[in-house]
């Protein structure tokens, strides 16, 4: 196991290195002088020179990358071109809102997906199964921003049950916080719900065909006990993989959902920064998204082996 962890970490090094090159090159993909693009109409020679100096654009590319990587190693992602605040600070200020949204959406997805997926597997071919299957295909087909808009229309604008947009920190007022987070969380979690339901269903169907389930039934265990005590525990192992990847991909989904619900998180910061041509902030967020995805992948692999002893790391 230790050898496997070390090997995986070593394999991550070149990938992480390539990721940093990709993120660094983001600024240099812009056609023409990045400084001119970032400044837009407000380009004075002084402002251009300032950005050239701040980003080291007057130096050769490899030198620029070396300087950028050196700063990155110290946790310094540079300063925002528009607000002049530290990029790291700007991201970490917005991160709690994104994490709150991501956690609630994940919880919502699990609360819906696991029971429905289990029932669909147990009653294969029934109406519940057909409805669940329909939800899984529709869930991955409907854009989350559209789900958000429909939820706003139905539950905020028409029925006035939930506030439209805005954020209240959980520490400030838990009830209000939940009222504000619920709609964006449902919108963000719909695709995840569909995928988790599908995995729970197929994994449960497979587990229910195993001999030990038949043995448990033969020994007189009730069907409910067999499903929820014996089968579900093992059926959820593959679901853990997907959940891990969904945690790693929280920022990705948040980009659109936070824009729809004016949620002050990292995703909305990304969109605002793109329109402000604030590439240093965009770089920081893309880097954070990529690294959280990579770490989530690694953790999923490790947890998977821990949960399922049959998996060999040799």
């Amino acid at each position, binding site marked *: 196991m230790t050898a496997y962890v070390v090997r995986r970490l070593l*394999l991550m090094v*070149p*990938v*992480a290195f*390539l*990721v940093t090159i*990709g*993120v660094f090159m*983001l*600024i240099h*993909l*812009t*056609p023409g002088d990045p400084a001119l693009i970032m400044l837009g109409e407000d380009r004075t020679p002084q402002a251009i020179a300032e950005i050239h100096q701040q980003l080291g654009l007057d130096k050769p590319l490899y030198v620029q990358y070396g300087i950028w990587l050196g700063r990155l190693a110290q946790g310094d992602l540079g300063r925002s071109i528009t607000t002049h605040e530290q990029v790291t600070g700007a991201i970490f200020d917005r991160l709690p809102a994104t994490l709150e949204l991501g956690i609630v959406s994940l919880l919502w997805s699990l609360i819906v997906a696991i029971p429905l997926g289990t029932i669909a597997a147990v009653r294969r071919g029934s109406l519940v199964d057909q409805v669940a299957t329909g939800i899984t*295909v*529709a869930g*991955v*087909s*409907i*854009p989350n*921003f*559209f789900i958000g*808009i*429909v939820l*706003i*229309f139905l539950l905020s*604008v028409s029925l006035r049950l939930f506030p439209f947009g805005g954020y209240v920190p959980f520490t400030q007022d838990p009830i209000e916080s939940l009222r504000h987070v619920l709609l964006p969380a449902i919108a963000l979690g719909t*695709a995840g719900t569909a*995928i988790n339901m599908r995995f729970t269903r197929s994994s449960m169907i497979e587990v229910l065909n195993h001999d030990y389930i038949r043995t448990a039934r033969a020994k007189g265990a009730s069907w409910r006990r067999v499903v929820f005590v014996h089968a579900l525990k093992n059926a959820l192992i593959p679901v853990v993989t*997907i959940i891990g*990847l969904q945690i*790693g*991909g929280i*920022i*990705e*989904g948040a*980009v*659109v959902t936070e*824009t*729809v619900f004016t949620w002050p998180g990292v995703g909305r910061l*990304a*969109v605002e920064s*793109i*329109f402000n041509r604030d*590439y240093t902030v*965009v770089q920081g*967020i*893309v880097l954070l*998204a*990529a*690294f959280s*995805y*990579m770490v989530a*992948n690694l953790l999923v692999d490790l947890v998977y082996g821990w949960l399922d002893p049959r998996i060999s790391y040799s």
Partner: protein
Amino acid sequence: MSQAGTIVAAGEPVRRTPVALLGLLRTNRRVAVGVGLVAILFLIALLSPVISPHDPLATSPDDSYLPPLSPGHLLGTDELGRDLFSRVLWGARVSLPVAFVAVGVGLFAGGIIGLASGYAGGLVDLLLMRLIDALLAFPGLILAIAIVAALGPGLRNAMIAIGIVAVPVYARLVRAVVLQLKQMEFIAATRSLGASPWRLIVRHLIPNLMNPILVQVSLSAGFAILAEATLSFLGLGAQLPTPDWGQMINSGSTFLNNDAWLAIVPGAAISVTVYSFNLLGDSLRDALDPRLRS
């Protein structure tokens, strides 16, 4: 919106002739429905200049905000009095080509990388796969947004960005199938008969890649349409006044209080389109993968 979950299993390579694939339409109801829905969408995209009752760009301020089922405007009109039904029909003409160019970019670049990696093996495989791992390290939508942010908003750049996101999916898929095929006796036999690498790839490897690629193309097209709509919704894809579904939802969302249909109609169009491609991909995978057939 990661694509990771949609990568299809390599499966046992069974080459099917076009006639056999057509036979699936008769024997498999889900495949037939999927093909039928996608065919209808293509017909709409192709015929929208003929079947649209109005010019999708023509404004008529006197007719603005007409509700659905108004005389002469089946789905109503938007804030500038443009016919929503015509704009939705023309939207297919924007979304489908974007999706197919993007999938084409991904398939071409990813296919070449996957073939080279799987066929050559060794150091070439190691280096190319690290590159692919690096691309896979970025969540799909974040990578697309980052690329469009750098290249500038617009449909052409959106196509390139979505295509780049699809590259690792095809590279991994093609490599996996090529590695599997390389172990098979017919490849060893062909090689021992003196077939050149070019002949081996073109005559024996590529035809056996068609089944998994066909499935992946259907699933990727659904993803590409969703990604294009998302980019356009954020203002990074199609620009005004192009009748694009994502962009229409964006402008329609500001009128939710009184005219919610302006956002709901194009949203339904995207959902039905993506659903059709996902249904086709899913049903093809079930029909073509022997392990899933039971």
